[in-house]
């Protein structure tokens, strides 16, 4: 079994990665002068708060239209899902798939992923720690990509403005959507992935189902 730095009384500076002997709960890094603690303080509560905030934003982001499209003076508002449905109707499948993944699947997957990680940081789980680490990596990596639709609306609103012929305006939903993306990114940032390994180490080896599962995985 590996030894964790925490068990050895060592800390690793989150900024410059210098290994130091922890003299107190929180201390300053001798190399980059950033103060840090062995684990991010109240990591889980922060992650939880940002995730809930993102979840709350997800509702208006999907209910309100992202943009209003005027053709010959006729306004036409569309939410994210309606927009995707229109693309499918017109046979523009590649765009429909990209938008669907970036602005619907990814945000939802990110929030669910964060909840799974938070749950597993509390107790050792059926998922191997390596899988959880990968899950965290995915959540972190996906972060910025859901901004896609916000950028698209901004570009479309700026470019498509052809007088009475047609024009595009941003609509209410875009604000909630943008905030939702920022909140999930903050949630992923405040999560301390090392808690997953801590939870695994705390669990005594008496858990039979756990060890069997690990053996099955390594075979």
């Amino acid at each position: 079994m590996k030894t964790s730095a925490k068990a050895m009384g060592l800390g690793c500076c989150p900024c410059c990665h210098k290994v130091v002997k922890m003299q107190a709960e929180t201390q300053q890094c001798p190399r980059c002068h950033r103060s840090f603690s062995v684990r991010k303080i109240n990591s889980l509560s922060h992650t939880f708060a940002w995730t809930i905030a993102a979840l709350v934003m997800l509702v208006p982001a999907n209910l309100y239209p992202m943009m209003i499209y005027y053709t010959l003076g006729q306004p036409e508002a569309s939410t994210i899902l309606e927009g995707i449905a229109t693309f499918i109707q017109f046979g523009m499948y590649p765009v429909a798939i990209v938008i669907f993944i970036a602005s619907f699947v990814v945000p939802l997957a990110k929030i669910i992923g964060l909840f799974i990680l938070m749950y597993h940081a509390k107790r050792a789980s059926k998922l191997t720690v390596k899988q959880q680490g990968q899950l965290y990596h995915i959540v972190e990596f996906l972060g910025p990509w859901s901004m896609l639709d916000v950028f698209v609306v901004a570009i479309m609103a700026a470019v498509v403005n052809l007088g009475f012929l047609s024009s595009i305006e941003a609509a209410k939903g875009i604000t909630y959507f943008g905030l939702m993306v920022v909140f999930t990114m903050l949630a992923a940032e405040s999560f301390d992935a090392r808690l997953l390994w801590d939870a695994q180490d705390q669990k005594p080896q008496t858990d039979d189902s756990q060890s069997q599962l690990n053996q099955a995985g390594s075979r």
Partner: protein
Amino acid sequence: MAKPAASLNNIVVCRRCDAVLSKPKIEPGQKATCPGCSALLYELKKNPMERTMAVSLAGLLLFFPAILLPMIGVSAAGTHNEASLIDCIIILLNTDYHIVAFIVFLFTIAIPIVHLLAAFYIAVAVHFNKISQSLLVFFRSYHVLDSWTMLHVFFLGVVVSIYKIVDLAELTVGGGLMSFVLLLICSTLVSVTLDHHYVWEKMEQALED
């Protein structure tokens, strides 16, 4: 019981799983990964400062055309309209989407500029051995901003918009888009060329004296 400080320099701690490992010996151009969770421990790069200087300077210069020149233009039935990155933000401000305008400005202009500036300043200072306390502040901000640049996402946004507009009206691609693609390449290359490990070691040596 307390180990001498020197031994701490021979070990690394994995940032993801907190494993304590003895420091692997690697050559420039190689990477060291954690055997437990396969996270990147650190890597050594070839000519890190010279390359970072060149790439970040190019990126900074490209910012002006990328922001100010029109990216795409559309024309239909005698009317023509084109928009640059800055126009996108102005339109959002004019339609009272202040939060969204701010988010777009932050992720596509403010953070990438500071990110590149910090990288350039660090590379120049370390290369010419002018290491001061203020460099710490810059390098720390570089770390914080690393995961918050969204130039690549914005670029995909432009591509999706082009795809959407193609059927609607006649489309022209402006010089802004070309500069933006080059800027995107430079900003991505900076994180490839800048060697964090090297910079921190240099800084530590210089500031100890």
